[in-house]
Structures are given as structure tokens and as C-alpha cells.
């Protein structure tokens, strides 16, 4: 377990010392969300209708930005080899990598989304559901994305391939994430959508570390 914690701490420390990568993700999300109301115009009803979709697509693309670097640095400098030889199961170490990635590239989006939602004239309830859907949904994006990152590790032009691989798998998350906020606005309640998101999180959380570990083993051979 201590290997897990120190890997998580190391990734956070490295990001803290070189924050440009995380800031790129956050900046991208903020810019996309802030430009939309300017382009669409000040019609409140339109903005309210657009908000969940725009914010969710923004969050999804933003989290895609940092994905292809998830394992790359560790692969290049040999840390991945040492992880494989460490005696700690690689699956567990991958859990720490994914957790660090989410804290750095997912959590800031969750925290920023309610602020940006105000630009779209969302109600207090809707802001809450938006943040909640992102809180459950962004870890799913990290989990699924990590599989893609592991599969495309060491390939030239891997970034494009990675996007092609994971975007279709991101679609259900997007549909139910944005759908949760829309359902609330339509007066249907968002529990069903959030439950499905939660199920996706459990499924991807269980399956993804194992799949990543297998893909990384193949990449290193």
C-alpha cells in the first residue's frame, strides 16, 4: 500500500512543480465554457438549454487533452520498468496513476463547473446536479481513457489513435452526464441518470486498472 501512496504523492508533487499541463486542461475548459455564451447570445432560455451539453463536452475534451501523457513520461524514463519489477501488483500501481490523473485533471473541472454554469443562467439545483454528474462522470473518463493511453503507449501519432479509441467509449458518459442536468430541468428528476453513471463508474473502476496493466505489460515487452 505504501507504494501506492508514494506513487500518488509523487505524481501530485511533479504536477505541482510543473503545473503547465494541468493548467492547460483547466484553461481549455474555462475558455470553451466562457466563449459559448458570447457566441450564442444573451438569450437566457437558449443558454439554459445549451448549458449541460456544452459544459459536459468541454469537460470531456479537456480530460482527453492530458490523457496521452498519462504513462508516457514513466515509460520514457524507465520508471514503468521499475514498477513492473517492484513486487507490488501493477494493477494496484495503475490505480494510483489513474487516481492522480483524476485529482489533477478531473477534480478541477468538477469544482469549476458550477462557477461556469452561472454564465449559462443555471439554477442552484441544476448547478448542484451538474457538479454531481461531473463528480461521478469524470473518474469514468479517467478510467476509460487510461486503457486507451496504455494501449497506445510508445506509438507514433498515438494521440490521434487514442482519441479515436476512447471517444466512442466516452459517449455513454456524456449522454447520461448531460442528461442528468436536462432531466432535472424537465422536472423528471436526475436520480436515474446519476445511478447509471454510478454503475459505469463501478464497472470501469473494476475493469480498467486490470486492462491497463495487461496493456502496459505488452507495451514493455
Amino acid at each position, binding site marked *: 500500500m505504501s507504494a501506492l501512496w508514494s506513487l500518488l504523492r509523487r505524481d501530485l508533487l511533479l504536477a505541482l512543480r510543473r503545473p503547465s499541463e494541468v493548467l492547460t486542461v483547466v484553461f481549455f475548459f474555462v475558455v470553451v465554457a466562457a466563449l459559448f455564451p458570447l457566441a450564442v447570445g444573451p438569450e437566457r432560455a437558449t443558454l439554459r438549454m445549451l448549458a449541460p451539453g456544452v459544459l459536459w463536452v468541454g469537460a470531456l475534451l479537456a480530460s482527453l487533452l492530458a490523457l496521452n501523457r498519462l504513462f508516457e513520461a514513466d515509460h520514457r524514463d524507465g520508471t514503468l*520498468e521499475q514498477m513492473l*519489477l*517492484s513486487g507490488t501488483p501493477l494493477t494496484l500501481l495503475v490505480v494510483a496513476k489513474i487516481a492522480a490523473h483524476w485529482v489533477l485533471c478531473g477534480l478541477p473541472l468538477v469544482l469549476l463547473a458550477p462557477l461556469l454554469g452561472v454564465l449559462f443562467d443555471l439554477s442552484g439545483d441544476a448547478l448542484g446536479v451538474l457538479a454531481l454528474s461531473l463528480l461521478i462522470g469524470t473518474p469514468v473518463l479517467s478510467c476509460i481513457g487510461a486503457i486507451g493511453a496504455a494501449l497506445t503507449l510508445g506509438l507514433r501519432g498515438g494521440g490521434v489513435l487514442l482519441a479515436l479509441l476512447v471517444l466512442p467509449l466516452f459517449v455513454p458518459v456524456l449522454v447520461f452526464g448531460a442528461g442528468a442536468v436536462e432531466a432535472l430541468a424537465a422536472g423528471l428528476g436526475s436520480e436515474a441518470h446519476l445511478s447509471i453513471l454510478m454503475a459505469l463508474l463501478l464497472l470501469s473502476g473494476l475493469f480498467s486498472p486490470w486492462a491497463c496493466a495487461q496493456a502496459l505489460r505488452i507495451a514493455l515487452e
Partner: protein
Amino acid sequence: MQPHTGLETRDLACERGGKTLFEGLNLSVFPGQSLHLQGDNGSGKTSLLRLLCGLALPLAGQVLWAGQPTTHEREGFLRDMLYLGHALALKEGLSALENLHFAAALSGQAWVPDAALQALHQMGLRGREHLPLQVLSQGQMRRVALARLGLSPARLWLLDEPFVALDTAACGVLQELMQNHVSRGGMVVFTSHQAVHLASGDNRSHRLGRA
């Protein structure tokens, strides 16, 4: 000979890019022995080390640790083994001490800061323990990686070109480390193009590839 504590290979064969690098390779290292792997560029030294530590799988044959294939009881083997490859597994954003701390945690060792400082001083890095590695030179970074040798409880060291980029003083320190390890009953397998003379112990060498 104590057949139950060493590293042995049985009829090991390796292929890279459709070309057989070596086959029928039988090597062994037992406590108190070192093995110097020699050979031309591309003769399969690095590939052999990767087979020995289990990062790659052999085309044929087995690697045995304590008489058992290393694929069995893998965790026990990994705890007894330290592999230092071409890539140093160091983060440029972290200091030497932080890098050693992470390496120790990853391999499940207890962290003793004083011992780590001492290992860094031994490698001639006094005063640079807290500097981020990006301000160190190539040779100094290799010294940081090699400081792991002084901290690890591993009995078997697998070192890929450990003398590269080191100055004469550091080469001397490294030879001394290897010497001490072997004389304490450790085992070292290393590749090097240099002639390396360990003063005591049972030191063998093996040349890969046909001359």
C-alpha cells in the same frame, strides 16, 4: 556451490527482429560471484539482462532463481533482485533524495533518510541531495541511480552498462560497491565494454555472440 540460492539459465534463446541473438545459453551466478557480460553492440547483452529480470520472455529456455523458474514465486524473486537499466527511472522534477525515497517505497523497502544521505555522499553527491535532477549532469544523474545499490537489500544486482557516463572516481566507487556486495555473498551480473577488475571474489565473464 549452493544450487538453491543462485541465478541460472537453462538453454536460453532470444530473438530480436527475426534474428536469433543467442540460443542454448547456460549461465549461472551464485553467492559471492560476479558475471561480466561482454559482446559487441547488438550482441544481446541488454536483451539477456531483460530476460534475466523477467521484463521480456525468452524464445526458449528458462531462467531459474533458487532452482525455481523466476515466473513461479515471482514476488520473492523481485524482492531479491535489483535491475538498473539504460533508462534510470529518475524524475527530473524531483530531488535526488525524493527519487531515492520513491524508488525505496516502490520496492517496499523501509525508508531511512540517513542511509540515503550516506549513499548519496558515497556517490560523491554531497551538497546536491536536495537539488532537482534537471540541474545535474548526466553522470551525476547516473550516480543518483547507482546510489540505490547502497540502499537495496537485494542479493542479485542486474546492471546494464553501469559504468557509462561515470568519471574515473565514480567508476572506482562503483567497483568498490560491487566488490563489497560480492564479498558479502551477493551476486552481480553486469554488462560493460570496459575491462572491470574486481579484486576479490569469483569473477567470471561471458562473451555473447560469435567472434
